């Protein structure tokens, strides 16, 4: 028998739709040392299982992991590539953080990222034909706006369906992932295809002034990584220093109590969903404006799911997510080197990612026990 909770409303079963009212570890008031130890434990377990898989496919795990590490952080160029890959992951993870903190299960980052890329591309192409002399100081904010608005708007469909018709957002957002990826395919093979691209599925280049500056000469590192870190700080400020953020976290912790406290729960849920989608849209924007300068078919190697995993590993804290995003950017970059060195499938990385986060989720039970 436990002591009765301070808030009697919290003890009642939640009269909510399928998607609500789950008490989650990060909704606890404090985070102890073990909260930081868990992701590290998960890391060890995941790489342990990964080692078994490597050995099973006839590779020496030590050699493989050495190649993985070298590929991720071994040289200046590799570190730059890791940063490049971490950028969209960080944007997505920030968006997921925003939604999950409100107990809004937005699994649609991949779709919102794709639609954000479409928004940015359309903005960049429109500026190219309408205002070709626009300076970057105006063009880049328009790109950011385009990515954020399109991503947010796309997520808002799932938000409206959840708030108005109580439709499970996990399923709608996943369905919309399929739709968005097909839509980008449609655009790049159809209406947006650049005739000069030799039949390849890609759009024309966006306005030059709308492209994010390269930070290091002759490398792929672009301004997007700075924008992502700025976004992390902004998300932290919004979630913890503003009324809106307080309301979103209160709804996430206990929608019923939040409602009793006078918070407009549906509004918070909707806003969390839209901002979450907008941040994922920025991931697509930064890929278009910073890296490719055009819309490509299948430009994302699963940044959506990587970002979702990163958000969970970073304990849904915008600042703690930054190292987690770097780790995953490194895993994606290093996986190619590892695959070349020991001839294994790069999907081993996906398995390692999944095991890591499942370990963290499962072992929260222990934390609850230890912390009482």
């Amino acid at each position, binding site marked *: 028998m436990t002591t009765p909770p301070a808030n009697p409303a919290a003890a009642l079963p939640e009269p909510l739709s*399928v998607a609500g009212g*789950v008490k989650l570890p990060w909704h606890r008031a404090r985070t102890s040392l073990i909260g930081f130890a868990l992701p590290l434990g998960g890391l060890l377990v995941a790489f342990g299982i990964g080692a078994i898989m490597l050995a099973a496919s006839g590779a020496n795990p030590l050699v493989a992991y050495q190649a993985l590490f070298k590929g991720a952080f071994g040289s200046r160029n590799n570190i730059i590539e890791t940063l490049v890959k971490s950028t969209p992951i960080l944007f997505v993870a920030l968006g997921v953080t925003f939604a999950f903190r409100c107990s809004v299960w937005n699994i649609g980052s991949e779709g919102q990222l794709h639609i954000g890329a479409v928004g940015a591309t359309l903005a960049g192409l429109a500026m190219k034909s309408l205002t070709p002399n626009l300076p970057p100081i105006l063009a880049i904010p328009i790109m950011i706006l385009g990515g954020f608005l399109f991503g947010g708007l796309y997520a808002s469909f799932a938000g409206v369906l959840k708030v108005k018709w109580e*439709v*499970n957002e996990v*399923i709608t957002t996943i369905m919309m992932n399929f739709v968005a990826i*097909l839509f980008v395919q449609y655009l790049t093979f159809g209406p947006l295809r650049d005739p000069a691209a030799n039949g390849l599925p890609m759009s024309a280049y966006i306005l030059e002034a709308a492209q994010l500056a390269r930070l290091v000469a002759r490398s792929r590192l672009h301004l997007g990584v700075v924008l992502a870190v700025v976004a992390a700080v902004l998300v932290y400020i919004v979630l913890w220093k503003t009324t809106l953020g307080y309301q979103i976290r209160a709804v996430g912790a206990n929608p019923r109590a939040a409602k009793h406290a006078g918070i407009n729960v549906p509004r918070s849920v909707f806003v969390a969903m839209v901002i979450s989608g907008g941040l994922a849209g920025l991931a697509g924007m930064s890929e278009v404006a910073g890296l490719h300068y055009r819309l490509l078919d299948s430009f994302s190697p699963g940044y959506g799911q990587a970002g979702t995993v990163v958000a969970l590993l970073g304990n849904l804290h915008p600042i703690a997510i930054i190292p987690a995003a770097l780790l995953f950017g490194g895993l994606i970059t290093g996986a190619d080197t590892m695959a070349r060195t020991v001839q294994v499938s790069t999907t081993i990385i*996906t398995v390692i*990612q999944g095991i890591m986060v499942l370990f963290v*989720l*499962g072992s929260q039970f222990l934390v609850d026990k230890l912390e009482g």
Partner: protein
Amino acid sequence: MTIWEILPQLFQGTVFIGLLAATVRMATPLLIAGLGQIFAQSSGVLDLSVEGLMLVGAFFGFVGAFYTGNLWAGVLSGMIAAAVVSLLMAFLTVTLRASQMIVGVMLVIMLAGLITFFNKLIFGTGYIPPSTEGFQPLHFPVLSDLPFVGPVLFQQNLLVYIAFLLAPVVAVIMYRTTFGLQIRAVGEYPRAADSVGINVFKTQYFAILIGGLFAGLGGAFLTLGWTGLYTDIISAGRGWLAIALVFFGKWNPYRLAMGAILFGFVNALQLRMQVMAGQQVAYQIMSMLPYLLCIIVLTMVSRKAGGPANLCIAYKRE
């Protein structure tokens, strides 16, 4: 040809018969996986890992049949493999009370990677994937030769008939047996069920396990009853559709079967339209149809769906 010239052609003669036969075939995996989820969801567990479980069933079903040369050994290995994975889901969400929303999705991500890894490990990266005979269409005397009805209903393979027979079986188990009553009691009000001596955890474990067995069978149908070979991510969102169909069917096996047929029809229709339209109509737009329909259908039913009161809330014994 525009889409409006193609549509009438699809509803004529042999094309239409082929369309309806494909509808039944395409409804089958959705129906099997959905029926299993009626157990899991009725016990209060929203098992979102179905997509991954179907992938496991499809792959291990194929591997089992490929190496033993026996289709039933394949079906069995697909079901068992998926059931083992669903035990992990049960352990994480029932015993450790981790969030069902997140664990299921993460399992799908992990399983997709794991199965792709196994596929490369076992079959290498050849350009021609290995294939197996698969279940052949049955031939019933008289019935199969009937015009129209014969090719649509009586020339399917055995797994299709098993799937549609499972619907009434599940209905009987859920509404006419003590076990079904216990599952529903646990999903409705676990504390009350516990107080009358029902083991809540055991019931939920069993329900999730049955869901896994069914999802494995649904997956095995994809490789052994349909394509005859395994290709990466063969489930293609069917696991998610199956979950949505359970909501659509309001946890009732018969309504679920109707939903599965509706989705089978739309999928069969859009695939034929893709073929007939050729370059004229973008195939991507038609491929979106089942996913869009899923969202529309869920929107229509969700508010009035009701459903197990304790769905998604982990039970804590006090």
